[in-house]
């Protein structure tokens, strides 16, 4: 197969135009909702499905662009004077556009059935915010200058903020929104500074930035600033604090969109800056995201394990997955900077693959919790249970997402995990002492994180869907509607497809590795149906074969057992030790699942516990778990800022003439500086 390492720039940007049109289409769908803002039927039955169609079209278009492998450019005469909006569609953007379109399509279908008239924002307005959010994310992915990128970035932050505070009448949701907005802006500021450093003396277009030659120090500064900015958006520890607050606060389709897609725009930004705009990366840069990523994996997994709110659990699981992705980015940079492009390509593929996977499975899970929330009105794991009997569609489709995110073959989560480990195995060949020692040890953390994810997911699925209902009200839970089912099924299908067709997906993603690190990996073994992407090593993985073989063995077993041992099946009550009064209270709870983790990883958690006294006739138990990071970093930081603000407040006099004096003095100082330089 012929791969274009230096793609040709096509003269007529057909696909890019189509792309812009589709994004505008989302905008239009959003505006259309304002016609009858209170109408649930219009938004649910018409607009959201329409938005879904646009999403699918966008995905199709992006895949076409990716398979074509070309780069398209366009300049739109909007924006600042002298800086029109530059747009560009290349393999990297295409992958993320495909991710956006395909995921958003499924989520929009679900959202069509999900939003009802409630106390929060009116459906029409919600639709506007929702579709503008989608459009701004798309715009981020095709923007090719700092100005339009940041504009779209801020639009994305603002629209998502409004979506987070949909139920703004609750104080904790307003607080979550505030933290989110604050972190988003701190992040945006870092990105702005990064662009400021990168543009050198040229214009603010990405093209100019690629051409600019930065000194080593400035390049490193730009990289670290970008890492801080995009890391804050993605939820990299310690900048993740907004994520477990904001994701659960938002309505479930929005949580799905934020976790599944919005976090990936940050990953896109990181890849764009580190591997494209900054030119060939320096190997040691990679160590920073690698170390932070590894820590994030462990941190996210541990906190997910002790959560009792199902959406917070998923939010922490997102933190963990962002850790995996940033670990991959770090590895890519280390390998690319050490003259190992083929291995760098492998690590990059693992990163991209995990982005796609996480978009699919996390959206699926968030939508699943949305359906549960709708049916039961309950987010607390302590009051759920046994829903597989009441909501079979949601339960079985969510099971696919659960198994996928636990990293089990033959589903998709395993593929990216596998690719990442394969690239880790080259870590000992990095030509820097110590680094070659430490990188393979990082593998241990990835593996531990993956295994912890399995623990977390058994807790998540088991407590919500299996066992006995913990509350009587759950008996009346109902399954979700057909539109929601299609949305869930689409995402589940995505998980399956990504899991079973890695050869094809890797083939398509090869364009990105060619663009960013200048190398591709082989995809298939000699037979053609086994994934064998590891350069120079005889390793292969065939999920389809594995699945077929498993199904064959299982069917054979069923057949043999049924044929030769057709003993009848009798339904009886569960074993109760002769006591005769099993209650739902006799099942492990979310706290119960968290207890061993809390016990084992005590230093991570800040716990306040109230244990019942022995012999107390009305015993009580209470536990509150907080992240130490609040007491260690954020609270002192807030206190410091408060202090500084108080000092600054002295400047405030309330008299116009004093303020004019300040302005005047500032002007003079600036002029003096200009004069002297």
């Amino acid at each position, binding site marked *: 197969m012929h791969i274009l390492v230096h793609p040709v720039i096509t003269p007529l940007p057909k696909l890019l135009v189509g792309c812009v049109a589709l994004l505008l289409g989302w905008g239009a769908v959003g505006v259309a909702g304002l016609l009858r803002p209170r109408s649930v039927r219009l938004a649910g039955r018409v607009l959201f499905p329409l938005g879904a169609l646009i999403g699918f079209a966008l995905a199709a278009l992006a895949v076409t662009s990716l398979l074509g492998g070309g780069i398209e450019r366009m300049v739109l005469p909007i924006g600042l004077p002298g800086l029109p909006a530059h747009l560009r569609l290349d393999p990297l953007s295409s992958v993320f556009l495909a991710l956006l379109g395909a995921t958003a399509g499924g989520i929009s279908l679900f959202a069509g059935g999900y939003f009802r008239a409630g106390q929060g924002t009116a459906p029409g307005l919600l639709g506007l915010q929702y579709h503008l959010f989608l459009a701004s994310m798309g715009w981020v992915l095709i923007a090719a200058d700092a100005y339009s990128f940041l504009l779209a970035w801020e639009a994305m932050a603002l629209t998502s903020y409004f979506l987070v505070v949909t139920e703004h009448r609750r104080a904790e949701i307003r607080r979550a929104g505030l933290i989110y907005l604050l972190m988003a802006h701190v992040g945006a500021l870092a990105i702005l500074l990064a662009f400021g450093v990168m543009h050198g003396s040229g214009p603010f277009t990405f093209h100019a930035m690629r051409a600019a030659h930065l000194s080593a120090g400035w390049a490193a500064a730009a990289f670290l600033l970008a890492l801080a900015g995009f890391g804050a958006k993605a939820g990299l520890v310690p900048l993740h604090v907004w994520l477990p607050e904001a994701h659960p606060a938002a309505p479930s389709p929005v949580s799905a969109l934020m976790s599944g897609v919005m976090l990936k725009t940050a990953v896109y930004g990181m890849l764009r800056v580190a591997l494209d705009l900054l030119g060939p990366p320096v190997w040691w840069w990679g160590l920073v995201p690698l170390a932070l990523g590894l820590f994030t994996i462990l941190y996210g997994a541990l906190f997910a394990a002790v959560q009792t709110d199902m959406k917070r659990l998923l939010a922490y699981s997102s933190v963990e997955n962002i850790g995996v992705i940033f670990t991959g980015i770090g590895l890519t940079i280390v390998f690319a900077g050490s003259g190992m492009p083929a291995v760098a390509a492998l690590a990059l593929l693992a990163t991209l693959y995990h982005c796609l996977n996480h978009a699919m499975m996390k959206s699926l899970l968030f939508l699943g919790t949305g359906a549960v929330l709708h049916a039961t009105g309950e987010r607390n794991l302590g009051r759920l249970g046994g829903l597989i009997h009441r909501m079979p569609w949601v339960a079985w489709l969510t099971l696919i997402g659960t198994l996928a995110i636990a990293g089990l073959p033959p589903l998709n989560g395993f593929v990216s995990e596998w690719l990442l480990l394969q690239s880790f195995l080259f870590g000992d060949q990095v030509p820097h*002492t*110590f680094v070659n*020692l*430490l990188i393979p040890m990082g593998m241990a953390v990835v593996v531990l994180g993956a295994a912890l994810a399995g623990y977390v997911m058994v807790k998540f699925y088991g407590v919500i869907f299996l066992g006995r209902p913990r509350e009587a009200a759950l008996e009346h839970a109902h399954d979700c509607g057909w539109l929601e089912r299609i949305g869930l099924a689409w995402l589940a299908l995505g998980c399956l497809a990504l899991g079973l067709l890695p050869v094809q997906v890797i083939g398509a993603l090869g364009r990105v590795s060619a663009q960013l690190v200048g190398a591709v990996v082989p995809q298939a073994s000699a037979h053609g149906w086994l994934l064998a992407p590891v350069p120079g090593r005889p390793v292969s993985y065939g999920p389809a074969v594995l699945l077929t073989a498993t199904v064959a063995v299982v069917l054979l077993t069923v057949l043999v057992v049924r044929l030769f041992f057709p003993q009848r099946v009798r339904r009886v009550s569960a074993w109760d030790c002769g006591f005769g009064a099993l209650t739902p209270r006799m099942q492990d709870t979310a706290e119960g699942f968290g207890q061993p983790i809390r016990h084992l990883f005590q230093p991570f958690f800040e716990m306040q516990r109230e244990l019942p006294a022995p012999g107390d006739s009305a015993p009580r138990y209470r536990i509150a778990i907080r992240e130490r990071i609040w007491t260690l970093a954020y609270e002192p930081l807030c206190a410091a800022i408060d202090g500084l603000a108080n000092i600054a407040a002295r400047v405030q006099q309330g008299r116009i003439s004093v303020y004019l004096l300040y302005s005047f003095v500032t002007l003079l100082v600036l002029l003096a500086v200009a004069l002297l330089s």
Partner: protein
Amino acid sequence: MTHLPLDQQLLDTCAALLLLLSFAMLSQRRIVTLVNLYALQGAVLAAATLLLAWRTGEDHLYLSAALTLALKVALLPWLLHRLIRRLDVYWDTEPLLNVTGTMLAGLVIVVFAFALAQPITRLASTATRSAVGIAVSVVLLAFLMMITRRKAMSQVIGFLSMENGVFFGAMSASYGMPMVVELGVALDVLVAVLVLGVFFFQIRERFESLDLHHLESLKEHD
């Protein structure tokens, strides 16, 4: 992958075994087992010395090996076992750091030790390049063991294991110390153990326990 000669492989294996035994000692709380592990470490050390002697043809290394065997595999463990029986201390109390924590710290120490050994390694002959790092690790791990234990008995064993590390390091870096020094060290160790034995009886008579935190009470209080 480069193919190393067989004797190098054997030497590397000995080095790895030494490290393994150090970690095993780190996680062991039963003092009798600690002594046995120490004896085993001595045996591996003797084997390594023998190997090196055979390889380099340096005669005094044969003597070294014999000395190691006699002292560290036979005499000292025998003395220690006797001491344990006499003093009736079979178990160390719960270590200050749990096993996982100790092992993690040990892991970090090994990485650090190899960093430390880097410059020496460059000077050393190819034959023993990797061994220096392991020797430093063994010394530091023994130190860690002494830090995390309460009972004087395990601290003595830690001290002896530390000496093993020093010996292995010297041997691999420069094919052993001069014979006089070696004999001197051996004598020193022996005397140290005897003196400590007497010392233990004194401590026990004073405090009726060998738990060293009792020594804290000797601190002057104001």
